[in-house]
């Protein structure tokens, strides 16, 4: 979506219910600014995110996808984020292997107390993706307007 030729990326952020979503909430309460183009999807745990979710986000128009979960060791379900860590590593590596820009995907651990980190991460990620431009390699033309 281009407005005045200025590219504003659409970012999908999967946030775990227990830490990162609360972190995002805190960012809001603290009035820490991050772009409105970040669409947050709350998930029960970072390991709920199936590789397909990431791909589907790209299909539906995301330019970057970020997964936020509890810090390793802090998972509400003990080990969910450890599994997520391996899964996302493998998926990102595969995307990279297929020639899809590796900077479009990211995992960040954000606790409920890290509102500032959440906002900073999002700002940084949006900046990175803005530099990359529109997602062309993993787009579904049918979903474009």
């Amino acid at each position, binding site marked *: 979506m281009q407005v005045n030729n200025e590219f504003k990326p659409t970012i999908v952020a999967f946030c775990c219910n227990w830490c990162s979503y609360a972190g995002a909430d805190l960012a809001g309460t603290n009035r820490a600014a991050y772009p409105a183009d970040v669409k947050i999807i709350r998930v029960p745990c970072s390991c709920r995110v199936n590789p397909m979710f990431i791909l589907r986000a790209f299909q*539906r*128009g995301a330019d970057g996808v970020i997964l936020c979960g509890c810090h390793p060791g802090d998972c509400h379900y003990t080990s969910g984020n450890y599994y997520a860590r391996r899964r996302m590593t493998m998926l990102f590596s595969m995307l990279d292997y297929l020639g899809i820009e590796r900077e479009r995907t990211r995992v960040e651990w954000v606790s409920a107390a890290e509102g500032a980190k959440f906002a900073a991460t999002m700002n940084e990620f949006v900046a990175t993706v803005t530099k990359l431009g529109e997602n062309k390699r993993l787009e579904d033309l*049918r*979903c474009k*307007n």
Partner: protein
Amino acid sequence: MKKIALSKLNDFFAAIAAEEKLYLPVDGEKGADYKLWEEGVTYSRALNTNRSAKDFFFPQTENIVDFKREGKTIEVIDTRTETEDFVVFGVRACDARSFTILDKVFLVDPVDSFYAARRAHGTIVTVACTRPGETCFCGAFGIDMTAPEGDVSTWIAEDALWLTANTQKGEALLAKVASLTEEGDTSAVDAQKEAVKEIAKKLPLQNLPTEAFKGNVLLEKFNSAKWPELSKACLGCGTCTFVCPTCQCYDIFDFDTGHGIKRARCWDSCMYSDFTKMAHGNSRNSQVERFRQRFMHKLVYFPMNNGGEFGCVGCGRCLSKCPINMNIVKVMKSLGGDAE
């Protein structure tokens, strides 16, 4: 008969491509496939392409119609556009016959306008075979590989391409390239036809008997005890169906793009388990039944409905592509001997 020196083949393609899109087989690392001709592309004389030529008239997927849904209202948006003229060069005799078969499905009332439009705008230029392979069994279905059908038939003999138009569309095409062609006598072509017919006699499957599938054999073949054995190794994939030039079953599906609905159709395979799946059950629950459907359709149902014409052209693609090497030839040989 018209002829063009092979050295001028590139000019011939250029002349056609100047007016309409031209597709022809091009060699790739993994065999030949149809590609759009542009300067620098070389025609492949490979026996056959990986995918059949049906793609040009019945593509793997195409949009049928779009919808917009808002509240209780629905808007129907016809997305059909004018089809452009195009030429397919290098179609073999088997694939050329497949269009006759597809016509009998798509052009009977009610006409499928998507297919009809492409048929109307497409000109088929066939090339006679000179080096048939062991998987060829077109002869079994009365197809002469040395005299292919199509709008224009051509032969590559000696150092020239010989052309003859069979239809008005074909004549129009030849008229466009008239400046490149000259008259020639047919002796080279005749000699080649004879030579290829001699080669064909050595092919193991050219005389595959089809007698067993003629007449009213529907229940006999359907109830044959051999189906479970034949289908045992079948993986239930769609390879045979998708490489087949005559397989025409399709599925229709809706895709929600987020700002509208696209209704498209795509090739379907009777080998797939969801082919006949309904809300309350499935009329073909096992792979035996699905496997049987495919071969019964080609060998019995289609001929019954179409004056004895078989739904197979013997191109041999399924023979070379099937992951487990089960194919229509084995089915015909096995069921042909049925005397139950």
